[in-house]
Each structure stands twice: as C-alpha cells, then as structure tokens.
C-alpha cells in the first residue's frame, strides 16, 4: 500500500505564539513538494512539527502517515515509520562517530543488525557519491564540519536510512553550485529507487530547477496562500512575492531576531523589541 502523509488543518504554536494557522497538505510517494514563502512565516515550523520537535506544540489538526496517527508517536517512532528530516542546522554530537551513529540509526529500524561489511560498503558508496572526505566515518557527528559538509552529511544519512518520506529544510543553503547538483542528484536517485516522497524547503530556484517539483505551496503567515506546480516556483523566482501580497491582499510576517544588548560583561537576549 502507498504510504501517504496527510496533514489536515494543522495549528502549531511555539510558547504561546501561534505560527501555523491551519495547514492542509497531502504528500504521496514519488511526489516532490516545494514549500516556499518568505522568512519567518512557518516553513521550517511545518517540517519540525511533522517530525515532532518538543518545542512545537500542535494545538489542533491532524497528521497521519500510512493511515496512522503521527501526533501520537514519539520522535523516534516517527523516524522508524519512515519520516526523515534533513535539518537546516544539524547538531554536533562530539564523542559519537558518524559510523557508530549511523549504524545505531540503521539497526534501530531493522530486526537484524546490519553486517559490518555491508555497512562499510554502503557508507563508502555514499561518501563517493557526495564527494565527501574519506575519514568521515571516523569523525564525530557534525563536529568541526563546514556548513557544506553538514548538509551533505544529512543527505548521506538519508541515503543510508532510506526513509519513505523525506523533508529537506534548506538543504541547499551553504552549498556551492557543484554540491547543490550532487545533493539534488543523490536525492532524485533515491526517489527513483525507493519511490520516496519529498517535501523541499528552499529559497532558490536553482535547487528547484534541479529537483523538478511536482507540486508547489507558498506559506505566508502560517497558511498556504497559493498552490501550483513548477511554474509557480519560476514565477516567484522572477517576480518575488509582492504580486502575491497585492493579489491576495495579505501581509507577510516579519522575521524576528533576538536583539542582544551588551551590559558590560553580561549580555541578555530580548525578543520583540519593536513591538
């Protein structure tokens, strides 16, 4: 049976602030959904909420995958069911080597542990495909990685784990032109082999022109305001979002950044100073 991700009227808050205000979306296997929109309007929030980040509270709405309630699952259960999130800012785990981490991740979803021989063969293949450094397996996870290496490492993990629905959160930012092509090719190849469904967040047409999305959605102020296909991506790349705001009479949210005040040796964060 096809594993379909269904999101229905999803509302998500961070703290007491509502970020997503009713998102509905269906992703089928072998589809590529482009998620676009200005900064700070809820794209990453959508992906993190699907994966189950503890800071994001779902206040109403449903998410199902393969007809099972995703919201009732813990983060690791969601992953074992086939969801994968390639993160915008992957975390460092110093002390844990890539090879230990990946093997544990693969073994967590299989009854029989992967043989060392097969594992090494696969990781070597992945490292070659993504043109990463040979010593990667023995380095600590994302520790001292450059921005590009981290992003490639996310794709390597995706290739090894073989999810059924992958979400790529600005995977192309921080990558050079050649690396963007490598990453896109790797993702497309995996899609061809496993009929992987993809949700791709990006700001750049270059990545989308390589990925060739089958669907496109624009999120403004926590809602999907317009949907379309690859043509919509192109239009936004050439014209920006302004025409949308005028046509639909909506306003985007401004991205908020914490301001840092220096108080001598101490410093504190203060949010929302403009309000």
């Amino acid at each position, binding site marked *: 049976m096809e594993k379909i991700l269904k999101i229905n009227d999803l509302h998500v808050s961070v703290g007491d602030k509502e970020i997503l205000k009713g998102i509905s979306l269906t992703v089928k296997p072998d589809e590529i959904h482009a998620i676009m929109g200005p900064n700070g309007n809820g794209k990453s929030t959508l992906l993190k909420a699907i*994966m*189950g*980040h*503890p*800071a994001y509270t779902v206040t109403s709405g449903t998410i199902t995958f393969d007809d099972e309630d995703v919201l009732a699952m*813990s*983060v*690791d259960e*969601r*992953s*074992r069911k086939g969801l*994968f*999130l390639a*993160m915008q800012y*992957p*975390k*460092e*785990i*110093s*002390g*844990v080597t890539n090879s*230990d*981490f990946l093997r*544990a*991740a693969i073994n*967590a*979803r299989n009854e029989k542990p992967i043989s060392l021989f097969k594992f090494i063969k696969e990781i070597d293949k992945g490292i070659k495909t993504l043109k990463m450094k040979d010593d990667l397996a023995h380095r600590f996870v994302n520790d001292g990685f450059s921005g590009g290496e981290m992003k490639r490492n996310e794709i390597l*993990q995706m290739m090894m*784990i073989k999810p059924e629905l992958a979400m790529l959160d600005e995977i192309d930012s921080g990558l050079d032109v050649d690396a963007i092509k490598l990453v896109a090719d790797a993702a497309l190849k995996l899609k061809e082999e496993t009929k992987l469904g993809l949700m791709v967040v990006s700001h750049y047409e270059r990545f989308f022109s390589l990925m060739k999305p089958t669907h496109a959605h624009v999120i403004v102020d926590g809602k999907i305001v317009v949907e379309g296909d690859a043509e919509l991506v192109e239009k936004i790349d050439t014209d920006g979002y302004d025409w949308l705001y005028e046509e639909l009479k909506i306003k985007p949210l401004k991205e908020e950044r914490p301001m840092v005040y220096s108080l001598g040796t101490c410093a504190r964060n203060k949010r929302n100073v403009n309000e």
Partner: protein
Amino acid sequence: MSRSITLKDNKNYVLEIDGNDTVTLIVDSAECNIEYAANNADANVLVYIKNEKDTVLNESGSIVNSKLCIKYIELANHCFKQNTNIDVCDNSILEIRTIYLGINDKKVDFDLVNKGVDTEVNIRNNVVCLDKAKVVLNVIGTIVKGAKRAKCHQKNHCLTVDSPEKAVVLPVLKIDENDVEASHSLSSGTIDEEVMFYMNSRGLSKKEALNLMVLSYLMPNEEEFNVFENGKELYELSLGRVKEVCSM
C-alpha cells in the same frame, strides 16, 4: 611486568612498584585499603571496582622518582565511597583518570599533594550521573611550600541526565609555593534537548541515544585498556555494563 590482583576480604594491600609495571587491581570487597609505594617506577595501574555491594575504597601512598598512571573504573549499581590521598615526592609524575557512572550515590575525595620539587599531577575526571544518583566529587590539588616547579592540573567533566544539581563537583587548588603551574576546570551539564531531538529523529529511542552519549562521554579508546592484563575483557565488560544501565 604485567599482573592482575583481585582484592578480597577487606584486606589492607600494599602495592610496591619499581621499574616498568602494569597492574590490574580488581576490587571485590566491601572495604578495601590500598597503599601505593612507588620508587623509580614507570607504571600503569587500573583499579576496577567489581564488588556488587556498597564499597569503600581508601587509598594512600607516596611516589618517588616515578611516573604512575592510575585509572579508576566504577560502573557498579551500589553506593560507593572513595578516599584517595597520595603524596607526590621529588621528580615524580602522577596521572589520575577516572570513569564513574553514577547509578547510585557516590562520594569521592581526592587529595593529591605535590610534595617534592619537579613534580607533576594531572587529573581527569569523567562522571555521568543518572537520574536516581547523587554524586559528590571533591578534587583537591595541594602544592606545599618548597615544592618548586610543581605542576598540578585538573579537568573535570560531568554529565547529568536528569537535573544538573544532582552532581556536585568541587575542584580545589591549595598552593603554598610561588614557582608553580596549576589549573583546574569543570564542565557540567545535561544533554541538550536539540541533540536529543536530532538523535531521536534518526530513529534512536531515548535509551539508545543515552547509551551512545554515555559511552562517548565515559569510555576511552580501547587501546588504553590493552596494556593491562585482562584489559580487553574489562573493556568489554564495561561497555556491556553501560549498555545495560542505559536500557534500564
């Protein structure tokens, strides 16, 4: 020379070392007193706490013209008390490396004294404190008057799983001499929620993620164990022990 000694029946034990030596001390009694006497030695000692009941370990001793490295491994399920007081005399180096997994309450006192000239003391403590445990670690480096060119450095790393106040680590330096080099440091904290999310999002359960984190935090390279007699077995035993504890 390489030897392995099992300490049973609450005995006092005097460990005399001269020349090159590696010693594995397996503590298997409720109370154990060890006295180190090193003279012109270059030795590695591994103290492994095997006893499966509450244990008290008292250590004393002095080293002269020697280099002594002592590793402690304590991963057992019970309460543990340790009191170590070693004098480092002329031209000697003492290295202390500890691996403590706090499953139950632990109290450890180190008092290491730079007594002679040209002495060096290096301490590295790695502690993981699990939810039910309370761990207190007092680490005192003393440099007495007249201990010229003494060096005393300590590094303490502490990881708590539940709440950070469950582990108390006190690094102390007492210095009564001018011509010295000394430092102490402490890092302490819980597992970052974002790191946990990252590991969970790759399919690792909380327990599996904890196991990886604790292993990376505590266990040194396997090579460090291989010099000891029974070192390989003890290493495997320790890995198994950490896994067992983390999946509880």
